[in-house]
């Protein structure tokens, strides 16, 4: 029984790694650019398709393909921010919600038009690979995702604390006007952060293609859980998102095993509501983050 519980915990942590990776980009965009990006999952979906086609046409391994997909989706994100988001720079945040929601519909339906609704999946040599530790089994592609997520969290920490762009991002997040007065080019910060935020989704999508199949609506299913993770972790908080991702993953795995697989989704929403009642700002968030921004 002990080994079974350890196994369920491993499964929960690995699933949590996926949720965290998907949520980090979303929380970054919210914290700095102050945009609630409903189209976030669609960039993940595009990343998955891109990785799928690279594999299908040229046999490019997804772990190499990430060198192509991440920059490509980063560039797309920069473009989208410049064309669709920037015109609403001074508009109320509600209009931006509608813009990103519309963007999500456009991207999803464009994908439907281009690639139809057929599920696309690839089989790599490691799709089903697992490390065996006695009775325990650890999925290799999921472990890779958890390790990469840890790397990204650490990398973001260094970038935000040590580099000019990181500090500029923090400055813009804390006080847009003051940052401008200090000579920060706010439009560049917004474009690059948005690009980075959706570029991280491409990393997630590419690493997920050995595990999941993709359809045009795949992104939307991730967006919902990503929002839960972001709010639970404290909006705009990268480390909070990481922690919250792991917690949601663990709740899902344990409730699915001990109570019912059918209820595993419902239970983490219940837990989510319960935690927010006790801590409305999220686990690591600070009160008023939605006004104050990234921490």
């Amino acid at each position, binding site marked *: 029984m002990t080994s079974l519980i350890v196994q369920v915990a491993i499964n929960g942590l690995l699933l949590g790694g996926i949720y965290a990776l998907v949520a980090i980009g979303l929380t970054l965009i919210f914290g700095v650019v102050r945009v609630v990006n409903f189209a976030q999952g669609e960039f993940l979906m595009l990343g998955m398709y891109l990785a799928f086609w690279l594999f299908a046409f040229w046999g490019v391994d997804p772990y190499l393909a990430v060198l192509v997909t991440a920059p490509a989706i980063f560039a797309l994100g920069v473009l989208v921010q410049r064309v669709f988001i920037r015109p609403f720079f001074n508009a109320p945040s509600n209009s931006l919600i509608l813009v990103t929601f519309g963007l999500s519909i456009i991207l999803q339906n464009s994908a439907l038009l281009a690639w139809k609704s057929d599920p696309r999946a690839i089989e790599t040599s490691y799709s089903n690979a697992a490390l065996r530790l006695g009775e325990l089994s650890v999925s290799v592609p999921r472990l890779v995702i958890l390790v990469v997520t840890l790397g990204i969290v650490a990398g973001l920490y260094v970038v935000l604390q040590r580099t000019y762009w990181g500090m500029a991002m923090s400055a813009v997040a804390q006080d847009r006007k003051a940052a401008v007065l200090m000579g920060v080019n706010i439009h560049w910060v917004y474009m690059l952060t948005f690009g980075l935020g959706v570029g991280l989704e491409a990393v997630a999508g590419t690493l997920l293609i050995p595990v*999941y*199949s993709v359809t045009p609506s795949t992104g939307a299913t991730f967006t919902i859980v990503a929002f839960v993770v972001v709010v639970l972790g404290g909006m705009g908080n990268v480390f909070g998102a990481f922690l919250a991702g792991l917690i949601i993953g663990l709740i899902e795995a344990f409730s699915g095993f001990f109570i019912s697989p059918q209820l595993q989704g419902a239970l983490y929403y219940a837990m989510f509501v319960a935690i927010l009642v006790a801590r409305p700002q999220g686990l690591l968030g600070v009160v008023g983050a939605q006004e104050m921004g990234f921490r």
Partner: protein
Amino acid sequence: MTSRFATLLVLLCQLASVSPPAEAADVIKIGVLLPLSGPLAYEGSEVLKGFEDARVEQNEKGGLLGRQIEFVKGDAVDAKAAVSEAERLISVEGVKIILGTFSSVLSFAASTVAEKNNVVYWETGAVADTITARGYQYLFRNEPPASKLARAAARFGTVTAAETLGIPIKQFKVAVIGEDSSYGKAVSETVKTVVEEVGAQLVAYEFYEAATKDMSSLILRLKAKQPDALIPTTYVNDGILLHRQMKQFGLNVKVFVGTGVGHNTDKFKDAVGKDANGVIVSGWPSPTINPDYAKGLPAFLALHKRVSKEDIKSPHPFGNYNGAWLLWRVIERAKSADPAAIRTAALAMDEPEGFQPIGWGVKFAAAGAPNAGQNTRPDWFVEQWQGEKLHTIWPPKAMAKGIKVVLPFPQWSER
């Protein structure tokens, strides 16, 4: 002036002679209602190929009742469009027969319009039981309903498998799982009924969300129950995830029987590769079905290559060609394309197994029956993935020479 008037009169007469009613007498216009755009466009276009094959074949033989068959297409992208396109086909195009529809949702909606207008609705692909549960007079369905799909899978996964493996049915442990939408619930419910009817042990009856990102908890639960047979009802994505995670956690079963869409497409095989081998699934037959059973298959394969200029890519063309072929036979017997005559001829039809190109017989449930308009004679086929191809394994007569049922399902470690 008089001569000009006469010329005008002659011209008018000539115009009148090419007016639509005169032309309509030379053709039999049939409405074809399918999803030709939108998310089901691929499946809809595959069905259309089967209909076209049947139309061209019949027209080359001189048509029906001495008239050529003409299709008028309607694009049923969703239920709303299915209704408006059915209305257009009937009121604007004046069709008296509609062929369709692949999807149950579309069929359910559009057939209501046809029934109101006393237009024959000839269904060749949609399977929901509810379609023929409404006591309609002009609705006919050739293929068996979804409950038979579930029953075919469940019977094979219990009685046939237990017999083949030499396990007494009372000791045979079956796990039934399904995604938790109405599709998975309805099918799993029927499967569970069969498991209980035949006296096997139901050791697990579980549901999960189709959009789930992780099935490990479900798989660990099942592993603890050590089922002999697993009968899952999934869509494609969750079917793939289930397979991959079963392999990862080493959940070995002796029999794996899918109930339909999750396990009988190339999408499943492409995603899991050789691991598809051994999976059993109920549905349309594969092209390797024994031609002594499906007598129309060899001719159909040649016809399809000639008309659609390709080898068959899915089971839909043959299955739906077969349904249209039956409609032509009914019209011939009715000696009329009038809905009332077609109805009478269809209800009078009583043909044994082997009559249709696919090997099925014909006997439609009469008006007043709980499934009025349903062809009661046929049953679904059972297929098995062998060498990464689907082969028909049930009924035994339909099994091709050299094909054997492979049981038990190979252990993951032996693959």
